[in-house]
C-alpha cells in the first residue's frame, strides 16, 4: 500500500536515483584507476565507466581541478534534475539536503571577506548546490546581526540562524561557532523533518543523521582541545539528535583529551569500533577516514529498502565520496605520490 502511494509521486525519481546509483564506481574500477600513470590514463579509464565522455571536450593537459569541477558538475546536474521533478514532500527533503551546502558557502564567504579576498574570487569556490540569490552580497554584513537582517532573513537558513545573533563580531572563532551552531540547528531540523515524514524514510534517515550528529559532536570535541573554547560553549554546539544524546554528550562535554573521548565512545558499540585501530601513524587509517567509511556503509544500506527518500540523500553522499576518491587518486597520480594512493574509501 505504501509502495503504491509512494510510487505515484516518487516512483520515477526513486527509479532514476537507483539507476544513477548503478553508475557508482566499483572496486574493480578503483583497482584500475590506481594503476594509472598519468591523468590521461585516468581519463581513458573513466571513459569506460558511467562517466562516459565527460572529459572528452577538455583540452590536454588535464588538471586535477578540471576533473574535480567536471565531477561536481555532473553530480549537480543529476541532483538538480531530480529536484526539478520532485513534488512535496520530496522537494522539501531535497531542499533540506542543499541547506548544508548553503551553510558551507556562507561560512566560506564570510571567512574570505574577513581575510579581504575579493568576492569574485570566492564565488567559484562555492558549491553550486548551495548557492542562493543573496549569496554574493554577503560581504555587506559586518556583524552576525547584520548578516541575519540583511542577507539571511530571506533564505531558508533564517530559522537556524536565530541562535547566532547574539555573537558580537565576526572573527575566526565566532565564525566557527556560527558554523557549528547553524549546523546543529540544521541537523536537528532535518532530523525532526524526517521523523515527521515517518515510515521507512524516518528509519533510514534518522540512522544516518544521528551518525552525522554524533560525528560532529566528537570532532568538535577533539578539535576544541587547546583552543580558548570553554566547555560550556562547546556543549552548546553539540547537535542533540544523535545516539550520544543525552548521556554521551554530557560526558563529551567534560572530556579533556583524546583518550577521554575514546572512553566515551567505548560505551557505544558502533563508535568504539571506529576508534579501534584509528591513528595517524602510517598504515593506520585516520579517524576521519574511519568515519567516512562508516558513513558510506550507512548510505549503502539505505539502498536495501525501497519506497523512501533516504536513497536521494545517500546517493548524493556516496557520489560525493566517489568524487573525493577520484580527486584523491588524481592528486596522487598528478603529484607522483603513489604511496598513499590506496587511501581512498571504496563504496561497493
Amino acid at each position, binding site marked *: 500500500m505504501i509502495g503504491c502511494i509512494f510510487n505515484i509521486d516518487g516512483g520515477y525519481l526513486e527509479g532514476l536515483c537507483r539507476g544513477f546509483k548503478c553508475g557508482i564506481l566499483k572496486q574493480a574500477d578503483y583497482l584500475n584507476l590506481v594503476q594509472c600513470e598519468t591523468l590521461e590514463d585516468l581519463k581513458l579509464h573513466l571513459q569506460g565507466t558511467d562517466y562516459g565522455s565527460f572529459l572528452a571536450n577538455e583540452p590536454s593537459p588535464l588538471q586535477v581541478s578540471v576533473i574535480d569541477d567536471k565531477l561536481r558538475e555532473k553530480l549537480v546536474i543529476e541532483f538538480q534534475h531530480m529536484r526539478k521533478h520532485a513534488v512535496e514532500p520530496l522537494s522539501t527533503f531535497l531542499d533540506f539536503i542543499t541547506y548544508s551546502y548553503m551553510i558551507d558557502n556562507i561560512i566560506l564567504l564570510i571567512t574570505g571577506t574577513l581575510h579581504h579576498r575579493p568576492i569574485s574570487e570566492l564565488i567559484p569556490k562555492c558549491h553550486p548546490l548551495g548557492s542562493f*540569490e543573496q*549569496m554574493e552580497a554577503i560581504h555587506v554584513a559586518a556583524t552576525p546581526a547584520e548578516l541575519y537582517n540583511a542577507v539571511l532573513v530571506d533564505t531558508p537558513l533564517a530559522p537556524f540562524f536565530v541562535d547566532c545573533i547574539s555573537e558580537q563580531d565576526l572573527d575566526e572563532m565566532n565564525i566557527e561557532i556560527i558554523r557549528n551552531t547553524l549546523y546543529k540547528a540544521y541537523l536537528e531540523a532535518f532530523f525532526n523533518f524526517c521523523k515527521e515524514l515517518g515510515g521507512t524514510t524516518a528509519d533510514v534517515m534518522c540512522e544516518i543523521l544521528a551518525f552525522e550528529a554524533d560525528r560532529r559532536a566528537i570532532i568538535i570535541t577533539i578539535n576544541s582541545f587547546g583552543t580558548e573554547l570553554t566547555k560550556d560553549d562547546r556543549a552548546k554546539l553539540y547537535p542533540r539528535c544523535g545516539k550520544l544524546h543525552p548521556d554521551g554528550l554530557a560526558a563529551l562535554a567534560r572530556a579533556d583529551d583524546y583518550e577521554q573521548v575514546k572512553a566515551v565512545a567505548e560505551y557505544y558499540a558502533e563508535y568504539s569500533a571506529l576508534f579501534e585501530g584509528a591513528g595517524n601513524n602510517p598504515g593506520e587509517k585516520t579517524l576521519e577516514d574511519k568515519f567516512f567509511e562508516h558513513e558510506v556503509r550507512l548510505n549503502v544500506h539505505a539502498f536495501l529498502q525501497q519506497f523512501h527518500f533516504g536513497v536521494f540523500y545517500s546517493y548524493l553522499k556516496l557520489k560525493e565520496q566517489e568524487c573525493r576518491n577520484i580527486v584523491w587518486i588524481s592528486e596522487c597520480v598528478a603529484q607522483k605520490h603513489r604511496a598513499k594512493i590506496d587511501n581512498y574509501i571504496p563504496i561497493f
Partner: protein
Amino acid sequence: MGNLFRSEEMTLCQLFLQSEAAYACVSELGELGLVQFRDLNPDVNAFQRKFVNEVRRCDEMERKLRYLEKEIKKDGIPMLDTGENPEAPQPREMIDLEATFEKLENELREVNQNAEALKRNFLELTELKHILRKTQVFFDEMADPSREEEQVTLLGEEGLRAGGQALKLGFVAGVILRERIPAFERMLWRACRGNVFLRQAEIESPLEDPSNGDNVFKSVFIIFFQGDQLKTRVKKICEGFRATLYPCPEAPADRREMAMGVMTRLEDLNTVLGQTQDHRHRVLVAAAKNIKNWFVKVRKIKAIYHTLNLFNLDVTQKCLIAECWVPVLDLETIQLALRRGTERSGSSVPPILNRMESFEDPPTYNRTNKFTHGFQVLIDSYGVATYREVNPAPYTIITFPFLFAVMFGDLGHGMIMAMFGAWMVLREKPLAAKKSDSEIWNIFFGGRYIILLMGMFSMYTGFVYNDTFSKSLNVFGSYWSVNYNASTVMSNKDLQLNPSTTDYQQYPYPIGLDPVWQVAENKIIFMNAYKMKISIIIGVFQMLFGVCLSLWNFIYFQRRISIYCEFIPQIIFLCFLFLYMVILMFVKWTNYGPSTGDVKTGPYCAPSILITFINMVLFKTNSAPAVCDAYMYSGQQAFQMLLVVVALICIPWMLFAKPALILRNKRKMHVPLNSNHHNHAMGSENGDAEAALSQAQVPPPLPPHKEEEEHDVGELFIHQGIHTIEYVLGSVSHTASYLRLWALSLAHAQLSEVLWNMVLRNGLMFEGWVGGIALYITFAIWATLTIAILVLMEGLSAFLHCLRLHWVEFQSKFYQGMGYHFQPFSFEAILDSAAQGPEE
C-alpha cells in the same frame, strides 16, 4: 555465395603482420569488413596497451573537430556531406592532420576571444547608452517645475537642520538583470535601513550575453543616497548582485555629450564587429567543406589503432600476431586485401594467414542482402542461431507474411499496406540517404520489404475471404440465386437458400468465398468453422515442418541418437494425433454434403471433428442419432485407439531412450579406457553428450570425477524430461495457439464491418446535396479510423501474433538460438555508429 540455409562456415585464423605493414593491412581489412579480431590481451588495461598514445592523439583530434563542428553549427553553416569515403590516411599524414586542426582551432579560438571582447565592449556601451537615455527621464521628472517647489522646501529645511551646509544627494546608476530586481530592492532596503531611493526602468530590447550568446533582459536603475558610508554599502550590494555600474555625469550637458560619444563609438565598434564576424565566417565555411571528410579519416585511424591494440607482439618485436574469425569462403578476398595492404606500405615480407584448429564455438554469420536482412533481424531478435544450425530466415520470408495475411486478410487494407511498402521500396535510395532520427520511421523503413510482402499477401487472403473494407466483390457473379417470388421475399424476414436445389449451381465459386455470404445472416458461423479449421491445418503443417527441420539439423551434426530418440517419436506423436485430426477434416469436407441422397452423408449426420478427436484421446465411443453412423469409416474406433496408444508410447520413448543410450555408451567407453589410461574417461563436461559421442577418438582433457558423473546423469534426465514435457504439452497448446489465426482474422473482419456500419453508412443515408456534405465528413472520419485502427493498430497486433507464432510455435521445434553474432571489424559500421552517437 554462401549457404542460405545455414550460417557461414567460419574458421579461426592466425595472422602474422609485419610491424610496418600492420597499419595498412588492418586498414584494408577494415574497408573489407569480413574479419572479426579477438582480443589477445584481455587482462591489459585500456591505458596500458601499445598504441594508446595514437588513440589518445585521435581523441584529441576528434575533440578539436567536435569543437569546430559545434562552432559551425552555431553559425548555421551547412556542412558538406558528399558521402564520399576517403581511405584511412597513412600514419605520417596524421601529423599533417593534427597540425591543420591545431591551426584551425587556435585561429577560431582567437577569433572567438576577440569577438567576445568586442561584444563585451559593445554590451557595455549599449548599456551605457540605455542608462543615459533612461536616467534622462528620471532627471527630467525631477526638473519638473511642479515638483521643484516641494523638493526645494524639503531639502531646504533638512539642509538647515544639518547645520547650514548644502546637502548633496549622491547617486549611482547601473544595469542589472531584470529577474534580480525584487531581491536587489529588498536587500537595499534592509541593508541601508530604507535610506536610499531606487528608481528603475526596463530596457525593452534584449541584450546579448557575450559569454554564451544568450539573450537576457536587463533593467536600468539609479540609486540616490546620502553620504559615503551608504555609498560603499550600496556599491557592495551592487557588486553582490552582479550589477554593472556606469559613470553618469550630473549635468545634462555632460550627459548629452557623453551620449554622443557613446553613439560614435558604438558605430565604430559595429564595423569592427562585422569584420570579425566575417573573418570567423570565412574560417568556418572553409572548415565546413572538409569537416565530414576529416571526421571519417580520424575515426578510421582511431579504429585501426584500437584494433592494433588487440594484437600481440611477438618476441622479436618485428611482427604483430592477431587472431581472427574469418568466413572460409572469403579467405581469398582477405588474402588479396592483405597483399594490397603490404604493397601500399612498401613492405617486402608478405603477411601470413594461418588457419587454426579451435574448440571454441565460432560466431554465427548469415550473409544477407537488403531483402533478406529484415527477416534475418526478426529471427535474430529471438536469439542468434547456434553455429551452422538451420537458419529459419529463408522460410520465414514466405511463412511470416502469409500467417500475417491470414489474420489481416482484407483486400483494401492489404492494398494500403502494400502501397506503403512499395513506396518505401521504390524510393529506397533517397529515403535511406536522409537518415532520419525518428526511431519509429527507422523501424518501418528497416522492415520495408516485410511490409510490402505482408501487404501483398494480405491482398491475396483478402481476395480469398472476399473482403474489401468489409464488403465483398462480385467478380465472377454469385453461384447462388434466389428463387422465391417477390412477395415472399418482401414479407419474410428470414429466408433460407437450399444448396441441394436450384438455389445453388452445384459447383463452387471459382476462387475464394461466394459473395452471397455477404448478405447471409449466418456468415460468421460459416466463416468461423472455415477459418478455425484452416488455422489448425496451417498450424499442424508448420509444426511438422519445424520438426522436419530438426531432422536436418541432427543429420548435419551427425547426432544419430537424437534422430532415433527425439525426431522419430516426435514426428509420430504429432502425426498420429494432430495430422490425423487434419486428415479427418478433409474427409469430412469431401464426404459430407447436402446434395447426396443418402442421409448418412448428409448435413444431419456430419460428425463434429472436435468431439471425435476428444473421444479418441479419452478412449470413449462416439454417439450419434439413430439414423446415422457413429463413425466416418469402418474400423475407425480400433484404428484410433491404435494411434493414441502408439502416440502415448512415444512419450516414455522420448523421455528415457536418449539418456539411457548415452549412459550405456558411456559405460562401454569406461571399460576399455580405464584399462589403458587410468585417468581418461569418456565424459561430457560441456553437457554436449552427442558431440562427445561423435568425437569418441578425441579424449577430453579433464578426468571427470565420479561425483560429477552422477551429477551429469541426473542433469541429463532432468534436461530430457523438460524437453519431453515441453514438446508433449507444447504440441497440444501450440496447436490451440494457432487458433489465434482465426481469432484475429475474425476480430479484424468484425471491426472493419463495425466501422463501415457505424460510420460510413451514416454518410450514405442522406439524399441530395446534404448527402455530399455528410459523405465528405463521414468519409474523412472513416478513412482516418481505417488507417489508424485497422491498418496500423490491427496490423501491429497481427504482426506481433505472427512473430509469436514463429518464435514460439515454429522455432521451438528445432531452433536453439545459442550462438553469438559475427561482428567484423568494419569501417562502415564504426562510422555509422559514430555518426549516430553525438546526436543523442
